[in-house]
């Protein structure tokens, strides 16, 4: 899996077969799905329905979250069980922008305050809502808020060498605290109902077909960029240091590397990626509410990575897609028994596919190769 550090950047990043295939497939998907949705007649076998576009678009944002998690877990050994906190914060930033776009079309017709604030007798827009009506500012917040939280949290944690299970548990505490905080109506984020009933984005109506496809393309591009950034990092010299930290933290420290800063940096980058994923997610599902912060959601996200294959990035993306597809399909087809299937899937993957779905492929390939000579 390791390749020379000295080649041109692109060869270095895509020198790995898996990554190359992933990028090609992703680009194809990003282009083909909207085209099949818009230009193929509904009767055509290849037609992609609006529903499917929104669905795959959602999977793509989940995949980006999974890539972000794999970046720290697979390559630096940092297990965060609170990554949906960053995802949720990015989502809320986007949600606030969308909320402000509603303007006076809310039910109470207040031009400034969102409906839930009118209803709770808020007189002024809270300070943190200011500026969120400007798209560039809101997009900056999508990245900066999760980044800042990660920076502060990581600085506290890594500086005092909180590692392993302890780190995992306090990230759970973090996302749990955020969930409780966002549930509070006094916070000014709509409480349990969260932010919903969005009307349009950048002046275009959200429910229009074109916008749905545009959001889909944006998610595809977002995932692609996120993946490339992650690949760039892990194939650089820095990536080697990260892996060294993962495999032997103390030894790396004794060699003279300032482990805490490396961890802090990668943790922050990962949080920002998760934030972007959240921002892309919200307009496609049409709601953001505190349950996104739930600790179980974070654990599920880690499960995607494990199912896909930890430490490969594309495996994580694949896992996110596969598990969520299974969930979508099973909750529709077998509403009564799907948790059994999902539960058994998780157990089976851990026991029989320790390297996830991606590992299965290479396992099979190895077996075939071994058979050929004999």
């Amino acid at each position, binding site marked *: 899996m390791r390749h020379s550090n000295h080649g041109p950047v692109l060869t270095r990043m895509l020198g790995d077969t898996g990554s190359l295939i992933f990028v090609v497939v992703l680009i194809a998907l990003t282009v083909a799905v909207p*085209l099949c949705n818009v230009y193929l007649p509904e009767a055509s076998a290849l037609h992609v329905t609006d*529903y499917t576009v929104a669905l795959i678009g959602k999977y793509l944002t989940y995949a980006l979250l999974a890539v972000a998690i794999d970046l720290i877990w697979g390559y630096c050994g940092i297990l965060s069980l609170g990554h949906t906190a960053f995802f949720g914060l990015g989502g809320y930033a986007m949600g606030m922008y969308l909320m402000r776009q509603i303007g*006076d079309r809310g039910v109470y017709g207040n031009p400034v305050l969102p409906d839930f604030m009118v209803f709770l007798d808020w007189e002024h827009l809270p300070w943190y809502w200011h500026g969120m009506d400007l798209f560039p500012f809101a997009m900056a917040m999508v990245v900066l808020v999760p980044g800042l939280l990660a920076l502060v949290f990581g600085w506290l944690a890594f500086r005092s060498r909180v590692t392993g299970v302890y780190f995992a548990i306090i990230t759970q505490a973090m996302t749990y605290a955020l969930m409780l905080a966002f*549930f509070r109506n006094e916070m000014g984020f709509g409480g349990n109902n969260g932010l*919903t009933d969005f009307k349009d984005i950048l002046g275009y109506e959200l429910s229009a077909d*074109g916008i749905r496809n545009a959001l889909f393309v944006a998610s595809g591009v977002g995932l692609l960029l996120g993946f490339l950034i992650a690949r760039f990092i892990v194939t650089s010299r820095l990536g080697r240091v990260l892996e060294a930290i993962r495999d032997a933290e103390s030894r790396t420290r004794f060699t003279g590397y300032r482990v805490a800063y490396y961890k802090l940096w990668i943790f922050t980058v990962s949080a920002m990626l998760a934030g972007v994923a959240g921002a892309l997610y919200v307009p496609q*599902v049409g709601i953001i509410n505190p349950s996104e912060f739930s600790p179980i959601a974070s654990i599920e996200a880690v499960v995607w990575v494990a199912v896909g294959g930890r430490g490969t990035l594309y495996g994580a993306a694949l896992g996110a897609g596969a598990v969520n597809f299974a969930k979508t399909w099973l909750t529709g087809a077998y509403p009564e028994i799907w948790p059994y299937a999902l539960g058994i899937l998780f157990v089976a993957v851990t026991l029989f596919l320790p390297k996830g779905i991606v590992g299965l492929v290479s396992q099979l390939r190895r077996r075939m190769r071994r058979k050929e000579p004999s």
Partner: protein
Amino acid sequence: MKNWTKHTLITRWIAPALLAAGGLGSAHAADANANADVECPIKVGVLHSLSGTMAISESTLKDTALMLIKQQNEKGGLLGCDLEPVVVDPASDWPLFAEKARQLLAQEKVDVVFGTWTSVSRKSVLPVFEELNGLLFYPVQYEGEESSRNIVYTGAAPNQQAIPAVNYLMNQVGIERWVLLGTDYVYPRTTNKILEQYLKDQGVADSDIMVNYTPFGHSDWQSIVSRVKAFGSMGKPTAVVSTINGDANVPFYKELANQQISAADIPVVAFSVGEQELSGIDTDPLLGHLAAWNYFQSIDTPANERFIENWHEYTGDDDRVTNDPMEATYIGFNLWVKAVKKAGTTDVDTVIDTLPGLKVDNLTGGTAELLPNHHITKPVYIGEITDNGQFSVVWETDEEIPGDAWSDFLPDSKKLKADWVELDCGHYNTETEECSGQMSDMAEDEE
């Protein structure tokens, strides 16, 4: 179905490259006019959580809907077609509700959906139903402040549950001091806000009202119950108005029992505790505490008796209780059946236009009429908890009360009005005489 040729980013962006493929588009557009004739079987979507935290409440409504569909099929179906239920599990996951709603409407092409329970799940699917022009029957008491063309609200609005209950306590029990306890989300917040205003209008002093919110699933009630006890010991008759939701109720009532607060000391009237919730609690210590609903299993009418019999037969369990949201599902289902029969089609627009003004029998001996604001008329009953986990009615309204979408006790909603017959608007501002938000002709405007 919206026309694809609408000026969209994508089309402009990619169209030049794919002009050839564009020729196929016309076929697509021609398909847009949905055929109004009925296609057999008629598909009925059921959108209730079967797993996760809400499964406790919602899975019963799934069974209710399935039972009603089965009965209708035994009666020969509808318009000569069988009804086919399409059950999905949104797993108490709010974004998944939106996804599943889209699946039901766009993939399965169901004609009607019965589903959702929590406010947030309804809010989550609302844009989907409006976008895809579906029809949802919502069967749970809720906070009001909403009226969508695509949703029929068969549960109680606050004026059909909360206000009559408070009236009863004030006039019949002589309560002077009020504790409003709720879970921190929109339904309790709204209800308590309305009640606070209402109590103040009735001359209750600020210092005689205590409001407290707790998080979902709150399980440690020691301190709060102890505070309620202190608040209630100031010499004036005190009552608790509880909008505590779901899971938090059992530990709350257990703590009341622990601290030996009996209904004679401080009665608790709950808006979210029904027969089903009681079936999970040991009711002995709760005797005499109250609930306000539009239906109780104990109400003795032939229709109700039949319904309960059918329910026991359907579930194969004689101990399964019935409750208010089940009746609301029953009313909603019958309203829809009646509307479809009258309209002669399941086409959503036609059915929506046919629905207002229809009347069906409820289970307690009265009739439910669908009003132009998409809410229904309901009687209000106050029941006291009895030792067999049921309620005995201690008070009831003389007649059915019409559901009010926009409360008169909230300054910003007082001026709003919902009327889908005359005004064709869910939030019509009577001061500016303007309609904001969704209008039924919105979809056509786009074409």
